[in-house]
């Protein structure tokens, strides 16, 4: 990757659009930006990081290999930020960085811009960032696709080895000398390309997990299949037993059927007596039924006959009952009549006694009292005679009559009881006759059949009956046995289907085996590569170190151990106990360079404040070395105190491709235009503007907008 152009828009001290042309006709690979403090060296350095990675990591502090602080440099805000202060405070709050570079895949244009989404953005969340990456003649890639495209030619993991902060060099050194790399480990691994391999291993692990999951399912199925096979084998035995049982039942049935057939044959020889015997049998069955019925009829008859005596007695008792019943009625009237008569007599006696000559009925004076009295006496006598006559009548007392009527009434049979008795008796009698009739018929049939034949027939019939019973039983048993066989066959087919189901997928096992082997290979490769890389880093770093350190006889080599802990070795091969700070800084630079070299990535190196920790000799040697490396662009952002512009340009002229100065207008008392450089300049105190009297260029010396001026080489 070779940078061609860098375009800044409202970045740091660069207000508006600033273009930096990094194309050079010269063969050198060195690029230098010289400036005093606060002129924008780090802003350019950060602008490129932001353009490439979307954010700028603030400098972190490292103690004992552990990284503290850091964070992200904000795009906007009241403190230190990426956007130009004027643009942020007064303009539309928009900034952009564009990098044009050539890569083996073609020219690349990376454009990242950010614009406020509000009227005044106070934090990055209120900024909308867009990315556009165009490679060759392909369509522009944006967003995530753009980030991934950048990752292809400038992996983020390598940022620390290509954007080197000279001010943080001591932290690099501390990390490298620590027993554990921790903070640097990821980057070292990234430089060695191990993340790709590790990612590959992770990918393989994921794929293998998927395969193993399938295999697990398959194994379960295999297990189930195996169980089904065992069950099927057991089922086969059950089926065999069921079939054997069925066959035995069939044989037994066949045997008894043959015997039955023989019996039927023998019975057929008694054809002539068969109807008679069957008729007799039928009659005997009927006889038994009738006898049973007769028993019930006899019981009914006895039940009905329980009131028979009443029918007999009632015939005699009925007239008496009716007689006494009549007397009972008469007695009731008789007693009442006597009482009435007594009352009349009493009244008549009273009238006669109290007679006053006034008619008691009409109230008039009687014309003949005596005659009236005589008539009343005569009436009274008649009443007394009647009473005497009535009393003389022989009528039993009512109580006696009531008892007699009650006793006789108790003998009265229930209505229609004679009919019921007669019916029960007839029913019984008819059944007795019927039974006698049946017995007679049976007797007649018996007489018609020869005793011997009858005995033989009876025996055969009995045998046939027994055999028919056995046949029925054996047929039922055979039916069950056949059902058992059918069920066993169905179950066996089901189990055989399960057992026979193809569940094994050899491809899955093969794939698992291959992935496993690949993983082992990858791990071995990582281990092997890491060790090889370590040796290469050690060799490369030692080589660089020898060239750059100013005491190559004392500090001969660098040792990089397996944990990438670095140490300076002396001429005797031992670890230098107290190397100089310059030697340590050079060791660090050497290791970083070696790691970068081993990474194989041809990416520009950006070195901010490169000579901060170095003495003059080391600074010169460092540039001498790096600006000679194999075509890789090496950009330094140097403070004027580190590297003076003139001497540096002069000394490394043939290694420099381009050099720039970053300055404020106020830094220039002479005209700063390259083709003028006139010192004939007037200064207007009132307006604080310098004017070149030769070319007419004017500049405000109070301006804080940095000028980027190319240094003629």
């Amino acid at each position, binding site marked *: 990757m070779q940078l061609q152009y860098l375009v800044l828009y409202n970045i740091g001290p660069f207000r508006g659009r600033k273009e930096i042309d990094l194309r050079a006709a010269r063969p050198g690979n060195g690029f230098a930006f010289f400036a005093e403090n606060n002129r924008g060296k780090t802003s350019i350095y950060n602008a490129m990081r932001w353009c490439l990675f979307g954010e700028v990591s603030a400098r972190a502090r490292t103690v004992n290999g552990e990284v503290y602080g850091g964070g992200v440099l904000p795009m906007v805000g009241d403190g230190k930020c990426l956007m130009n202060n004027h643009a942020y405070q007064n303009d539309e709050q928009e900034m952009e960085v564009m990098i044009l570079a050539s890569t083996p895949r073609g020219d690349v244009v990376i454009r990242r811009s950010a614009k406020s989404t509000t009227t005044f953005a106070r934090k990055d969340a209120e900024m909308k960032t867009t990315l556009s990456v165009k490679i060759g003649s392909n369509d522009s890639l944006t967003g995530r696709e753009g980030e991934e495209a950048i990752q292809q030619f400038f992996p983020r993991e390598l940022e620390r080895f290509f954007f080197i902060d000279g001010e943080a060099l001591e932290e690099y050194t501390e990390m490298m000398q620590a027993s554990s790399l921790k903070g640097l480990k990821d980057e070292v691994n990234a430089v060695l390309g191990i993340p790709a391999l590790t990612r590959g291993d992770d990918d393989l692990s994921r794929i293998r997990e998927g395969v193993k999951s399938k295999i697990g399912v398959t194994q379960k199925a295999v297990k189930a299949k195996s169980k089904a096979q065992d069950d099927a084998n057991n089922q086969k035995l059950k089926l065999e037993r069921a079939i054997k049982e069925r066959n035995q039942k069939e044989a037994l049935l066949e045997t008894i059927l043959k015997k039955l057939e023989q019996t039927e044959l023998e019975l057929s020889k008694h054809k002539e007596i068969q109807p008679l015997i069957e008729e007799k049998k039928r009659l005997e069955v009927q006889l038994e039924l009738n*006898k049973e019925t*007769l*028993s019930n*009829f*006899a019981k009914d*008859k*006895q039940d009905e*006959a*329980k009131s*028979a*005596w*009443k*029918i*007999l*007695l009632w*015939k*005699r*008792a009925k007239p*008496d009952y009716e007689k006494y019943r009549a007397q009972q009625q008469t007695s009731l009237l008789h007693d009442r009549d006597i009482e009435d008569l007594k009352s009349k007599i009493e009244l008549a006696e009273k009238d006669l006694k109290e007679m006053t000559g006034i008619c008691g009925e009409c109230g008039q004076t009687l014309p003949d009292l005596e005659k009236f009295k005589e008539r009343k006496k005569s009436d009274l006598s008649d009443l007394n005679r009647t009473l005497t006559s009535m009393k003389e009548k022989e009528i039993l007392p009512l109580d006696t009559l009531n008892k*007699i009527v009650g*006793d*006789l009434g*108790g*003998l009265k049979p229930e209505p229609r009881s*004679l009919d019921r*008795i*007669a019916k029960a*008796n007839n029913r019984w*009698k008819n059944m*007795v006759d019927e*039974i*006698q009739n049946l017995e007679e018929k049976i007797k007649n049939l018996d007489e018609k059949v020869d005793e011997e034949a009858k005995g033989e027939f009876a025996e055969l019939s009995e045998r046939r009956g027994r055999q028919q019973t056995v046949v029925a039983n054996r047929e039922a048993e055979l039916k069950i046995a056949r059902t058992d066989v059918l069920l066993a066959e169905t179950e066996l087919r089901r189990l055989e289907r399960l057992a026979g189901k193809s569940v094994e997928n050899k491809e899955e096992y093969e794939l698992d085996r291959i992935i496993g082997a690949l993983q082992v290979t990858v791990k071995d490769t990582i281990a092997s590569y890491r060790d090889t890389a370590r040796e290469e880093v050690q060799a490369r770093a030692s080589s660089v170190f020898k060239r750059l350190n100013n005491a190559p006889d004392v500090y001969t080599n660098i040792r990089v151990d397996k944990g990438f802990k670095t140490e300076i070795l002396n001429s005797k091969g031992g670890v230098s106990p107290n190397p100089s700070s310059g030697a340590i800084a050079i060791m660090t630079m050497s290791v970083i360079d070696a790691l970068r070299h081993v990474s194989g990535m041809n990416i520009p190196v950006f070195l901010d404040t490169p000579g901060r920790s170095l003495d003059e000799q080391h600074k010169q040697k460092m540039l001498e070395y790096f600006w000679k490396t194999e075509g890789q662009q090496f950009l330094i952002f140097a403070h004027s105190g580190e590297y003076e512009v003139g001497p540096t340009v002069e000394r490394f002229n043939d290694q420099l491709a381009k050099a720039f100065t970053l300055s404020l207008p106020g830094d220039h008392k002479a005209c700063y235009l390259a083709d003028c450089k006139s010192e004939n300049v007037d200064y207007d105190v009132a307006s604080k503007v310098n004017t070149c009297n030769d070319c007419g260029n004017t500049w405000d010396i109070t301006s804080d907008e940095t000028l980027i001026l190319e240094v003629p080489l």
Partner: protein
Amino acid sequence: MTAELKTGSLQLSSEMHGFISNLVNSDSSSADNPFDSIVEGFRFAFSLGHLHGKTKKIGTSSQTVSPRGFIAKDYEVLIADECKARDISLGGLISEYAEAGLEMIAEHQSAGGMILDLLSVEP
């Protein structure tokens, strides 16, 4: 009136006692036995004898009939006057009627008749 009457015991001649016992104890359903106990048969025989006004003296060879289930007093209203007239106990007169009734049954059966047909025979 009734207070003066003696209740007496129920008896049958040995012959009739045997007859009625055989009648009742027969297990055959086809035998003409409308009575399920001796008392039932005794009551029927008494009623039959009474209907037909027939009595028969019971000789010296007699057997007592268990009075269980047969209360002679129940029939006092029918035969009290006759008992008084003949100076005989209730049980004695009832027994004579029963003895005569059983004789009628025996004769009827001997003639091929069924016992319950006697219900229709008018005196």
